[in-house]
């Protein structure tokens, strides 16, 4: 694929990984992804970020459509994570840049990743500016959105904000702009990306968005490092979506997630869902044998309740449930109502352990954890319907 012009002399030169499904080892990317790099052809030819190491030649090829790679003067490293810096050693060797700009934490991270001997690194902080000819680069550190080194670059002359991973989505497409792809798919992938990557840094996200708004930056183009780019009215759409994600306001939706051995815990999940539905909630029932923990988090982001079920196996919960709870804990979801349930044969520790894990995440637990011996009888399932109702009522009260 060829480079794509964004405005005159500003180009997307990234790579599309159509078959990426394992995203960084911790989540999945069902639609593939892109690694976006940008090139500005000004007096000082400037490259923003690179791509994953194995796409170095693809990046060089795209650059060569526009300028000789050796003509690049400056490289801006907005984010050091390998999917954006993996190709950097190869690019630095080929380009021999005059300067490499990065944040103070970026310098530390670059030194921890690569042998930077001879690299002309210049550290920049929030508010620092560099002229590249007709344009100015204005830097804004975005620490922990989503790594300590993260930085955004604003180009006032073109009203462009390059945001590294913030506002990214894992979408492999031939289209480059948000207004060219399916709207609901775009939204789902924005939710999925936020829930699995940005969520724990929601307080930082809110502060940085407030900072950008207080600076009164005019933004016509919002250029993330993954997926499609936002322009025109979509810039506000992306920013408002992030404000809503970061606020984590509960909605009338519940996720019932479980694993099961002989379908007993599954029966309970169905009964709980019946109770939730009777209170007017939308419900997602998710069996951990067929979904990834990143699929679950995509649903959890906007949910008001997370109800988790596990049978007791060898005195503990099933491994897939433990995996899910560990993953969810790290992402620090807020404002959720929790619930725990499951079957058991003799000792029955799993349900208590699940309930403790959810409480430790700060979830309110309006219904007592419920468990049943071996196989819940039909009349016994009424207790689970009631549990769903109790949780549903709590969500309705909270979501308003």
């Amino acid at each position, binding site marked *: 694929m060829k480079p794509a012009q964004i405005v005159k002399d500003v180009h997307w030169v990234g790579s599309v990984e159509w078959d990426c499904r394992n995203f960084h080892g911790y989540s999945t990317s069902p639609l593939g992804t892109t690694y976006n790099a940008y090139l500005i052809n000004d007096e000082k030819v400037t490259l923003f970020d690179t791509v994953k190491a194995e796409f170095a030649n693809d990046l060089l090829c795209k650059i060569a459509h526009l300028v000789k790679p050796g003509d690049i003067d400056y490289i801006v490293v907005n984010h050091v994570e390998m999917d954006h810096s993996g190709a950097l050693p190869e690019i630095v060797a080929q380009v021999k840049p005059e300067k490499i700009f990065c944040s103070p*934490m970026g310098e530390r991270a670059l030194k921890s990743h690569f042998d930077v001997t001879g690299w002309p690194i210049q550290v920049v902080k929030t508010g620092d500016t560099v002229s590249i000819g007709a344009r100015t680069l204005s830097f804004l*550190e975005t*620490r*922990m959105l989503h790594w*300590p080194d993260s930085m955004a670059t604003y180009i006032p002359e073109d009203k462009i904000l390059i945001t590294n991973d913030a506002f990214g989505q894992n979408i492999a497409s031939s289209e480059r702009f948000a207004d060219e792809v399916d709207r609901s798919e775009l939204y789902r992938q924005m939710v999925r990306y936020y829930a699995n990557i940005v969520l*724990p*840094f929601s*307080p*930082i996200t809110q*502060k940085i968005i407030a900072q950008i708004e207080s600076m009164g930056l005019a933004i016509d183009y919002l250029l993330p490092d993954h997926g499609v780019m936002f322009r025109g009215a979509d810039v506000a759409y992306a920013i408002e979506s992030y404000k809503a994600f970061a606020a984590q306001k509960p909605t009338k939706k519940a996720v019932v997630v479980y694993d099961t051995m002989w379908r007993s815990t599954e029966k309970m999940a169905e009964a709980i869902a019946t109770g939730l539905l009777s209170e007017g909630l939308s419900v997602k029932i998710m069996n951990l044998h067929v979904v990834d923990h990143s699929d679950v988090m995509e649903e959890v982001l906007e949910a008001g309740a997370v109800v988790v079920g596990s049978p007791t196996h060898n005195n503990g919960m099933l491994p897939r449930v433990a995996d899910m709870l560990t993953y969810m804990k790290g992402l620090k979801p807020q404002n959720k109502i929790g619930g725990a349930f499951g079957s058991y044969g003799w000792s029955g520790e799993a349900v208590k352990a699940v309930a403790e894990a959810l409480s430790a995440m700060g979830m309110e637990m309006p219904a007592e954890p419920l468990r049943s011996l071996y196989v819940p009888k039909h009349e016994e399932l009424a207790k689970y319907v009631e549990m769903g109702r109790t949780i549903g009522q709590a969500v309705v009260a909270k979501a308003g």
Partner: protein
Amino acid sequence: MDRYVCNICGYVYDPKDGDPDNGVKPGTKFEDLPEDWVCPVCGAAKDEFTKE
């Protein structure tokens, strides 16, 4: 003296060590850090810290 943990990145402020890179001497209590002091790892403000 109490240690404080950054809720965002997990960095621990230990008053015994202070934060010399940012001009905070060893022996400085968390409460005595300037209001504009931020987490040296992630930039979070003081109100993002919790007592350990």
